[in-house]
């Protein structure tokens, strides 16, 4: 599903590698937390999986795509197999909830009868039925993140990448979002979530991969945020 073999990433403008000789395997259906202090390389890790960036060294496989050797023409196929959510939601402010979700399908050429069918389904899954015609600025932060998750999941991706999805939310709302991500994980979707949130990681007891200065310093099958620190 995800396999990194001695992957390093050097940004041109930076002297220190953002990722340094990282080797990790993640299987289908896993739920993995990616933790580490600010600047440790979590977002870089996720960007490599999306091929927003290319590794400077090493081999990288995602959903059977050989990221280091694939042609640019195949990138859309890769990304269609991955859903993403971010701390800042990234919704289109001039579109309704339903339109935001539909947008993700329109731009990959899905027929409109499919869109009409699956958008209400996924809105119900994330608990937003009844709010389909609201604008994003008429929603709470938690609800906006649900829209973003619906948009990421509507095409039934093989994996969901979340870069600090609860970073802008209060603890209760964060808990709701985590329940939603667990629900999505139970459908067989791999979930990889970068986070700073101690309590979430500690309460879920899932696999934890910890980065520091671009290196993997810990990989626990049922980990907590900070052992002995």
């Amino acid at each position: 599903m995800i396999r990194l073999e001695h992957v390093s990433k050097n940004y041109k403008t930076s002297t220190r590698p953002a990722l340094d000789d990282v080797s990790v395997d993640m299987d289908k259906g896993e739920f993995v937390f990616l933790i580490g202090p600010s600047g440790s390389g979590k977002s870089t890790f996720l960007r490599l999986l999306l091929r927003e960036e290319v590794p400077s060294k090493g081999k990288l496989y995602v959903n059977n795509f050989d990221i280091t050797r694939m042609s640019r023409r195949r990138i859309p196929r890769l990304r269609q197999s991955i859903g993403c959510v971010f701390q800042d939601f990234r919704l289109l402010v001039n579109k309704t909830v339903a339109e935001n979700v539909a947008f993700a399908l329109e731009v990959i050429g899905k027929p409109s009868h499919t869109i009409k069918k699956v958008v209400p389904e996924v809105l119900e899954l994330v608990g937003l039925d009844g709010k389909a015609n609201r604008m994003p600025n008429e929603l709470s932060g938690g609800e906006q993140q649900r829209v973003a998750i619906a948009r990421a999941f509507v095409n039934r991706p093989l994996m969901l990448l979340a870069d600090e999805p609860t970073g802008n939310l209060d603890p209760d709302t964060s808990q709701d979002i985590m329940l939603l991500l667990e629900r999505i994980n139970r459908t067989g979707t791999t979930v990889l979530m970068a986070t700073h949130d101690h309590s979430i990681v500690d309460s879920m007891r899932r696999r934890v991969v910890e980065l520091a200065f671009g290196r993997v310093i810990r990989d626990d099958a049922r980990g907590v945020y900070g052992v002995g620190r």
Partner: protein
Amino acid sequence: MRFSFVLSEVLTGLRRNVTMTVAMILTTAISLGLLGGGLLVVRMIDHMRDNFGDEVEVNVYLNKDISGTDKGCTAQPCAGIKSALEQDANVEETRYENQDEAFERFKRVFSGQPELLDLTRKEALPGTFHLKLKNPDRANVIVQTYSNKPGISSVEDQGIFLERFFGVLNGVRNATWVVAAIQAIAALLLISNTIQVSAFTRRTEVGIMRLVGATRWYTQLPFLLEAVVAGLVGAVLAVAGLVGIKGIFVDNVLAEPISAGIIPKIEMLDIFWPVAPILVAVAILISAITGYVTLRLYVRT
């Protein structure tokens, strides 16, 4: 491919920045209009070459004395000149036009200008031998051989005048094209700039499109089409402008030389075929290439 999606993106894109779109369209239209004007001049020269081509004549003008007295060309030296011309190896055909006939033709050609007719006496017009040459390039030989013969006032090679006139027209054409090229540069920069602004305003959308796996068709085609649509509208305006200028300006100003058959009329048909399709093709090609290059250089895929 969902065309309705791409189309609505294009229209919102063009509406979003109306001032820039208008500037882009007008500059493109002016550039294309000038290009079209130059093409029409080329058409005109071609028509004239066709019309006059084989008929370019060398005219041998008789002097006043003979023109006035020997209208039948029976006495010397007129008869001698006539037989010499008819036997000249370079001459294919000799046609004699006496003063009366010359005046009749003059009246016909300038029927639209009574003032000129009033001013011109028949006696001012010379009797003329109109020569058709086997090889028009030998015209200067004829001019040299006959210019100083007794009874001849002058020998005139029409081809030289025609070529001079063509030279002027070619100059006009070149000048139009130079201005067209300068305008085209302005149009290119505007198109490129509009696309960049458009891509910047839509960066959130495009970012999401890229993340969810939209192909380049979806992320970039709207920008490309924005440029092409603007180019097309520019081409249509340019054609409309040419039709307008032809109808209001050229037809009136050049009415007389046109009706006299000296300058061929620019037909509507000349504008619609082949000039209009050429302008449309140029517009599409240039805006598409500019758009493509801009996207390649400035907009992340």
